[in-house]
């Protein structure tokens, strides 16, 4: 076997410490606040307005998006209050969260077949897919699931930003061996991006189901009892991640193979009681929505 020299990677602890001291950690408090607002049924529009208004760049971005063709509002929206009234409380919350998380994907970075913008598109596709699964299949709003799915590949961003050379080696090996990301990560670093994401989410004190879903997004959580309510977010993110990669929303070109096989994916679908065709229809809708965002020039910041 050909031996290749690899760049040294950071230990998991060092990577988390570096990420915690970087601008990446600025999204932690925002996600925390958004989750608190979404989780509290008594939360007021004023709370949301105040949260957005203390961050002027976020405020102007939310207004720009609220006025875009995507929402199709015929009048000018000039304040966060108006945005809440015209496009809805939940839509504004979701928008604020997407814009804040999207900020870390703003600068394009390409290495091997990997692209940061493609990772953002993948994260957004998984988030939309999870939201639709919750709304259409479970008849639940799925407020937390959107945030969870948006952040599920946070570990990749941390690896790519804080150990760029080791990350380039990782992508090169994944592409040349047509291997999944976690498999080579385990070999090279001794941990996976899912583990990094989970540690970061725990560091930000995000809810336990959220950190569990980030941890298990590549592989269904077998440790949890089947059908248990707490395994639902993790299973949903996992199947959405798989379905989105299969639909072409991958951070790499050519797409890297997913960790789970088709059989496991079908098992997870059965556990969630989602017909395969239903998920295919949801994926078609996600593709349409992302296409519309791209056409309107609103997919990337």
């Amino acid at each position, binding site marked *: 076997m050909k031996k290749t020299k690899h760049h040294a990677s950071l230990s998991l602890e060092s990577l988390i410490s570096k990420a915690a001291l970087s601008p990446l950690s600025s999204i932690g408090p925002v996600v925390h606040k958004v989750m608190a607002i979404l989780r509290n049924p008594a939360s007021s529009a*004023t709370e949301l*307005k105040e949260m957005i208004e203390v961050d002027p760049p976020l405020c102007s971005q939310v207004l720009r998006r609220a006025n875009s063709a995507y929402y199709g509002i015929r009048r000018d929206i000039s304040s966060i209050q108006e945005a*809440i*009234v015209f496009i*809805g409380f939940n839509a504004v919350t979701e928008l604020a969260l997407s814009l804040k998380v999207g900020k870390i994907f703003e600068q394009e970075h390409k290495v091997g077949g990997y692209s940061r913008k493609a990772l953002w598109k993948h994260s957004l596709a998984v988030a939309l897919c999870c939201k639709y699964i919750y*709304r*259409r*299949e479970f008849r*639940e709003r799925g407020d937390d699931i959107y945030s969870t799915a948006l952040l599920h590949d946070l570990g990749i961003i941390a690896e790519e930003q804080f150990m760029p050379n080791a990350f380039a080696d990782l992508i090169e090996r994944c592409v040349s061996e047509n291997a999944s990301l976690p498999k080579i990560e385990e070999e090279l670093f001794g941990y996976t991006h899912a583990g990094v994401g989970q540690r970061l989410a725990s560091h930000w004190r995000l809810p336990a189901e959220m950190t569990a879903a980030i941890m298990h997004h590549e592989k269904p959580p077998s440790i949890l009892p089947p059908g248990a309510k707490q395994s639902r977010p993790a299973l949903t993110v996992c199947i959405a991640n798989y379905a989105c990669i299969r639909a072409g929303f991958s951070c790499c070109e050519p797409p890297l193979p997913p960790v789970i096989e088709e059989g496991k994916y079908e098992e997870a679908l059965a556990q969630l009681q989602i017909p395969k065709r239903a998920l295919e229809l*949801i994926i078609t809708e996600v593709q349409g929505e992302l296409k519309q965002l791209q056409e309107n020039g609103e997919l990337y910041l």
Partner: protein
Amino acid sequence: MKGKRKELNEDQRKIEELEIICRHLENDLFLTRTENRENALKYLELLTELNMKNAELEFLRQVLSNKVSAEKQENAGGTEC
């Protein structure tokens, strides 16, 4: 016979698909209605806040207006003397 069976299977598949779409739309409609009700309440909340702010500003305007009148009168009195 084979062709008919194929047609039947195709129809069956379409029916199943339409049933899924119908269920999805029903669930979405239910949630959208709930959200719209909640948004209406949030709208009222914002309206109350704006009305309160208007009342505060109106009060401030009144106070300032009174002050201006009083100053004017004082100045007019001073000139007469």
